[in-house]
């Protein structure tokens, strides 16, 4: 297992290095280049030349790249032109919010998706099955930002049940030692802040989690249908085992293997979708920060955030593969 993880980590190095080169060149290819982005379009050629020299932009690109990647490895992702603060700092500030949101979405997607998919498969061909399949097709299609808007309209505007914007009611006096507001509420034993942070996660979590939910439902359903026809399930039935044992040990344990892989792939979808979801709900996380940086043409932020996302995505999928190996003995042996 350790060798497996090590081999996978080694394989990641060239991909991430290549990606960093692409992202580095990407900033060079931006309209006007970084200097114009910094100085504005009406800067004099002299000023441009001076700044180019100042930032070492007159040197060959690979020297600049080595400089840059050295900084990146040391945690230096440049400075945001919009907030004038280090990109790494902004990332650290906004990422916990997005992690909270993405986890909420994931819990929703898996928590509702696996039982739904299982039920649909058990009732294959019934109205419940058809409803689930049709619903999941809708779920895959509906745009996150539109769903977010509808949820906001129904549950916040009309029913007044849940908050529409932000992570925490500003009137609540709360401390944030970790940046994970739900966790903070628990740590500081501030139940009001805890409940409020949770309430703020519900609607964005559902909006962000709907596409993953639809995908989990479909995969679970297809996978359970496959497993139900397996001989070993018939063997389990022939042993007269309790339905719960058959369901857990013999059906779901096998059927969830593809679901695990798919959940790993959702990490990328969730981080991308967070940009839209957080914009709709004014949720001050990583995605909202990216969205604001687009209009401000804050390329250092985009570069740093995209690189960071890729690293997170790749690592999450590595973790998923490891988890897969722990569940499936056949992979462990291979």
């Amino acid at each position, binding site marked *: 297992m350790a060798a497996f993880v090590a081999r996978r980590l080694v394989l990641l190095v060239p991909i991430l290095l290549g990606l960093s080169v692409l992202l580095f060149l990407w900033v060079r290819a931006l309209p006007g280049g970084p200097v114009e982005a910094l100085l504005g379009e009406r800067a004099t050629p002299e000023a441009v030349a001076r700044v180019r020299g100042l930032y070492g932009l007159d040197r060959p690109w690979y020297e600049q790249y080595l400089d840059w990647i050295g900084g990146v490895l040391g945690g230096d992702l440049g400075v945001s032109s919009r907030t004038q603060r280090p990109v790494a700092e902004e990332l650290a500030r906004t990422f916990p919010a997005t992690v909270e949101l993405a986890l909420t979405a994931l819990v929703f997607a898996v928590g509702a998706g696996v039982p739904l998919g299982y039920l649909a498969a058990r009732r294959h061909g019934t109205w419940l099955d058809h409803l689930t399949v049709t619903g999941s097709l809708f779920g895959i299609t509906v745009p996150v930002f539109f769903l977010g808007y509808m949820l906001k309209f129904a549950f916040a505007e009309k029913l007044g049940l849940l908050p529409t914007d932000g992570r925490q009611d500003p009137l609540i006096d709360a401390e944030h030692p970790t940046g994970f507001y739900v966790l903070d509420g628990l740590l500081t034993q501030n139940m009001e802040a805890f409940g409020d942070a949770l309430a703020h996660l519900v609607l964005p979590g559902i909006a962000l989690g709907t596409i993953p939910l639809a995908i989990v439902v479909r995969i679970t359903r297809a996978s359970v249908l496959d497993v139900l026809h397996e001989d070993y399930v018939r063997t389990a039935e022939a042993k007269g085992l309790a339905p719960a044992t058959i369901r857990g040990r013999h059906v779901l344990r096998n059927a969830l293997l593809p679901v695990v892989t798919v959940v790993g792939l959702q990490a990328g979808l969730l981080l991308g979708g967070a940009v839209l979801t957080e*914009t709709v709900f004014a949720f001050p996380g990583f995605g909202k920060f990216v969205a604001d940086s687009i209009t401000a043409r804050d390329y250092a932020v985009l570069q740093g955030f995209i690189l960071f996302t890729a690293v997170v995505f790749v690592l999450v999928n590595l973790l998923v593969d490891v988890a897969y190996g722990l569940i499936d003995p056949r992979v462990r042996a291979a």
Partner: protein
Amino acid sequence: MSLAQAEGAAVQEAPGGLGRDAWRRLRRDPVAIAGAALVVAFVAVALLAPWLAPYPPDKPVGQVTPTSIPGPSAEHWFGLDDLGRDEFSRVLWGARWSLVIGVVSLLLGLAGGTLLGLLAGAFGGWVDGAVMRLVDMMLSIPGLLFAIGVAAMLGAGLDAVMIAIAAVNVPVFARLLRGQMLAQSRSDYVLAATAVGVPRRWIVLGHVLPNSLTPVIVQGTLTLATAIVEAAGLAFLGLSGNDPSIPEWGRMLADTQRYLASAPLLAVFPGLAIVFAALGFTLLGESLREALDPKYRR
């Protein structure tokens, strides 16, 4: 394997591309019919928007203030938008933009992906390795962030949106096509066809390519759905440029969502339009997949 058997295998096991069998199944599938109906309606509206729309999409046709935006009425079925334009006409015209963005980005992505996939498949060796590593790299960035990056690089605008979405699809198609070519050229029926002496050129043209194309057709249909949604998403984030007269659905939704309290329907109409257009291609794509690929049949 005897010659006769090999011949039999070549005839029987080659899953016929868009065969008559698949067509028959499609026509009996209610999901396919619903999908096709939505797609036909969407394309018809896109093509006929200038004749269907009762008002111009880019000029005010009534008086509005931010606090009083008239809702649906007999003259204006979907009401007026925040600038006094006819919402119904704008939604109709929006179909045109969505179709153009979807089709162009699909074709660009398909072209790029085919080029990369063929490059990898045809040359093999280190070319294949390099192309596939590039594909891995592109796929390690979440699609929407990748698109944002590309669109930002090109400068906001609808053309940037199309290229950005195409770029996201390039690695997907490249991997799909390479995998298909590889799998097909190693399959039993190709072996069988080779064994009975079918010329190599005919095997590739008559068997490998058509069978590789089946999943590409399916993926293409599904990609149209995601392209429409992604384009709306990029427009929602302000990447479709500054021209407020263009009735793009995502942008309409972004521009009007601040009237959540006073005129909530303004954002609902373009939103529903996106859902139905994308749903049409999704339903059609899924039923195509089921009809063409025996694996998905139950």
